């Protein structure tokens, strides 16, 4: 594919996309941490006490 066949983002579009990507990344990381810690907070050490 040549350059002409692709969408060329303007500088402001690139900056905006980068800003959105960082925000989405941070939000996802925050959700992972929240659900991990909340699981421990809700169930306590019992979360590890499960029959194999």
């Amino acid at each position, binding site marked *: *594919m040549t350059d*002409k*066949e*692709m*969408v*060329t*983002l*303007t500088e*402001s*579009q690139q*900056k*905006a*996309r980068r*800003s*959105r990507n*960082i*925000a989405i990344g941070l939000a996802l990381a925050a959700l992972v941490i*929240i*659900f991990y*810690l*909340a699981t421990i*907070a*809700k169930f306590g050490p019992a979360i590890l006490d499960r029959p194999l």
Partner: protein
Amino acid sequence: MALVNNRLDDQAFRMSEATAGDFLALLKPRVMSLVVFTAFVGMVAAPVTINPFLAIVAILAIAVGAGASGALNMWYDADIDAVMTRTAKRPVPMGKVSPREALTFGLVLSVLSVMTLGVLVNWLSAALLAFTIFFYAVIYTMWLKRWTPQNIVIGGAAGALPPMIGWAAVTGNVGFESFVLFLITFLWTPPHFWALALFKSEDYERAGIPMMPNVAGAASTRRQIFAYSLLLAPVGVAPWLLGYTTAGYGVVSLALGAGFVWYAWKVLRMPDADKAMKPAKALFAYSLLYLFAIFAAYLADSVIGRAVALGGV
């Protein structure tokens, strides 16, 4: 053949220039801060406690849910936001965020916040949050706002619910004490917004929103503002009268309520010819201070009460 053509116009293929900040603006951060604060007071006022981390999760979920309803409001109201000076710079009328992006953002955050609150905290608070989002986005924004001058009176219920959600997140039920907190914000909303509507009536007229000054006239609105202030002042003191707080809160709320009635009285006395409407602007500013201060007093009273109880043990 190329699948995507550079010459496609903006309507056919639009690359977004919306930054994370534009999406944040869709959440109405200032409204969100008030929601967070009142919900927090509801949580602290509750007679029991929950795990502090789950309390933070609950506050976050309530904040995101409130923000989601703001995004849905901005999606639906983009046409009238564009013609009002107060709202013309919002991301959708400015063209930074497309209506579809705002709608998707609002829906995703609504589901995410309600599910998170339900799964991690409890389903009563999640149901109340879902009801709040529905009430604000559908009942107020899509129906009442463009239909009746009672729009913000009934719609005010959405803004008043956060303390009850906070209370429910901690206790798993809704007590009468949390209902009194609901009532304070509910009765505060009409005089707050009608004071704004008095000095922004041209804006609302241009947008075709039937706010009270545009429908019933300025004189009737001033009378109604004063009537609501007479209702609000005693309800603000009610938590003390009902024995939920100490006399410290009672004195503060009494002074704040007297101040509210005083500012509303000055609005009532405002002549029709007054174009500057300083009394209305003063009441609007004071109303913001009133709500923050009365909830802060309630919070301080609850915290001190707990500290004293702990010290007693």
